């Protein structure tokens, strides 16, 4: 289903030494996909629901491709393999039919939990103003959240940021527009909780919301923003690897 192809012309000398063709961590990828989507996929409430993965290759011009999977193992295998050359992302929600490959607000059919995007300053970012000084400093934000709210977070460290997430006890099926709006609102409120805490630390733009059509880096793959890739991985709130 992938919709792009690479040629030798896509090698960019300005990007420095090409990334080593290291594949992703299949075990971690599969573990996470099972954690996030397992319950939702086991209840076949909506026909055509699928995990939508995105692969973005950073070359002269970013190229993006999407693939749909109804099976976690297939998705994990493909992601691990594709991770050797691409940045791998997943849609936080399961999606139905997506005419252009990428999921949209309308195509989202099931949300498994809430997730937000916390960014730290990075030399590979266009704008660093208002962001947390380092990824380590973002862990203080995570601790603030866990002290303030009665929830524990599952964290994905993406190299230059963190995706905090909470899985719902039961997946939320988006059967009508109103439920879809409610789910979108809940994602906004989850990000708002971090925004409030970040504002107290003077980081005004370190928090981004993840919408129903938003993309999140997949743990077990690599962040290939710079020539030497950084692992995207599941971590504990103390910064340790899970």
């Amino acid at each position, binding site marked *: 289903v992938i919709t792009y192809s690479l040629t030798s012309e896509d090698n960019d000398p300005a990007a420095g030494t090409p990334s080593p063709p290291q594949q992703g961590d299949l*075990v*971690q990828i599969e*573990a*996470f996909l*099972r*954690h996030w989507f397992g319950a939702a996929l086991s209840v076949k409430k909506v026909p055509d629901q699928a995990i939508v993965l995105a692969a973005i290759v950073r070359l002269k011009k970013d190229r993006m491709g999407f693939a749909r999977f109804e099976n976690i193992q297939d998705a994990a295998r493909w992601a691990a393999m594709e991770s050797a050359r691409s940045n791998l992302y997943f849609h936080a929600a399961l999606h139905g039919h997506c005419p252009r490959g990428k999921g949209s607000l309308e195509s989202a059919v099931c949300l498994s*939990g*809430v997730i937000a995007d916390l960014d730290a300053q990075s030399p590979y970012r266009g704008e660093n103003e208002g962001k947390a000084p380092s990824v380590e400093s973002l862990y203080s934000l995570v601790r603030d959240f866990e002290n303030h*709210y*009665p*929830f*524990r*977070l*599952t964290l994905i460290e993406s190299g230059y940021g963190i995706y905090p997430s*909470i*899985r*719902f*006890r*039961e997946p*939320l*099926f988006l*059967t*009508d527009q*109103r*439920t879809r709006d*409610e789910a979108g*609102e*809940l994602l*906004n*409120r*989850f*990000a*708002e*909780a971090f925004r*409030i805490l970040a504002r107290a630390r003077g980081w005004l733009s370190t928090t981004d919301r993840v919408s129903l059509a938003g993309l999140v880096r997949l743990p077990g793959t690599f962040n290939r923003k710079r020539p030497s890739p950084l692992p995207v991985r*599941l971590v*504990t709130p103390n910064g340790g690897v*899970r």
Partner: protein
Amino acid sequence: VTPGFAFAPDADIAELDKHLPEAKESAGSRFHEASLGDIGIRSLTEAELPPKFQVLLRTNSKFSQSWERNRSDLNDTSLSGFEQSLATISAHNGFSAQEIVDLLVVFRNKWKGSWRGRSYYRATVAKALGNAARHRRDQRQGAFYQPEAETPNSAAQDASEGRGKSELLAKLNNAIIFGGRIRFGDIMRGGRYFTAFDDMGNEILLGTAREMNGFVQTQANIVEITGINLSIPSGRKAVYWYPVVELFIQIANSQPAKFEFGLEEEVRMYLARALDALTHNCPCNAARIDLHNPEELYNLNLSIRNGRRDKFLYRDNPNRDNANRANSNGSGADYPLWPRFICWSKDGRLCVHVATLLMFLGTPVGGDERRVTLDRLQLGLEMMRFTYVTQEGQSGRLRISYLWAISSPDFQLDPDCDPQPGLNPEEDPDAEQPAFQVGDYVQWKLRGSLRFSSPRPILGFSFDGQYALFDDKVQAPVSQLILIRRSQNQNQSAKGATS
């Protein structure tokens, strides 16, 4: 927990909804103000709802039907539509925001609805509480502006206090629906009709009590005379209009009526209305009947036998004249020909089939008269010396007999009208109006009814010549006048010219 990786424990979506901050702070704070506090989403069972819920379920049929999702009168029959209905009814019955949310959550669980967050419940409850508050404000304020602190208006209360006519008029002119655009000087009653006089000298026919309560006819009459179009907010007629009608009636009844209709006059009016309507529906009904012709009587009785109430609901059938000519037996099988229940005979008798007349009077085109009964009609006809005769019609070997009420020969239904009602086809709207002059005696015919108890002389005309002026400041459109007789001066001058 997936082996090898320790994921954080799952969270209940309702708990997240409860604890996470609002993305838009204003939404929550507005709700706090409206409902005097925020709401919490609690998972209760039906048994845990407050006792007043059970009372409402027993006593309010709409509430119990909504609870069972069994409302045929609701446009929105989705789960949220029923929830809005439940919220509105319970808000009107004094439930707090939290109590409403509790019952909505139980309701949603009962029908296995999908999850809804606080923003949804806030929106539903805020709408319900807002409607209830607006309703209470309407009830408190009522139909009239109350500049000084007064108790809620009530016509009965005013009557018991014995308020004078001027006070009632002052209150009427404070009606919200008029908005100060019309100021009434007097309200009079003549027969069943109420007439208002405003401070511009206009005479406004308000209509019967039934028409006034229906609003539309009275609204049209007021527009016709004053150019002011009254409007009532949707669903607020009981609040804004009925108290005004009560006041109209109260003011009119506080003084003697201009004239009263007796039973005979009332029945004459019904007969004239029936004749006018029949003639208007089909001009051939203006033809006289030969009571000694069995074939004609057969067709007449056949139309009665085929007569149905529904036929009076069809007024405009473009083919009815042709169809009538083609199907002269009047069976009405292929077009809605009205039963011919009233007609003139060749010797000047008026023949009435009373039961069909009663049926006609109960239809919209017959005036939707609910007060009239068979006894009342028969009594009125007896007062006019009608007698009951069985008329047998025959066509070949077929015979049909009906009992008809028949007047004496040369009966005059309207002594001032020539020809009598129902004897001429409906006037041609394209025909030229007779040129009226001051002194001519005329009748005012409005929507098939004669408005003057007797013909009146014209005293003058408006500047544009569109309205004729009568005594008592009455104005009538010239297009609605019927010439009864010319003025004396004209007759004399005509005689002089002849001699």
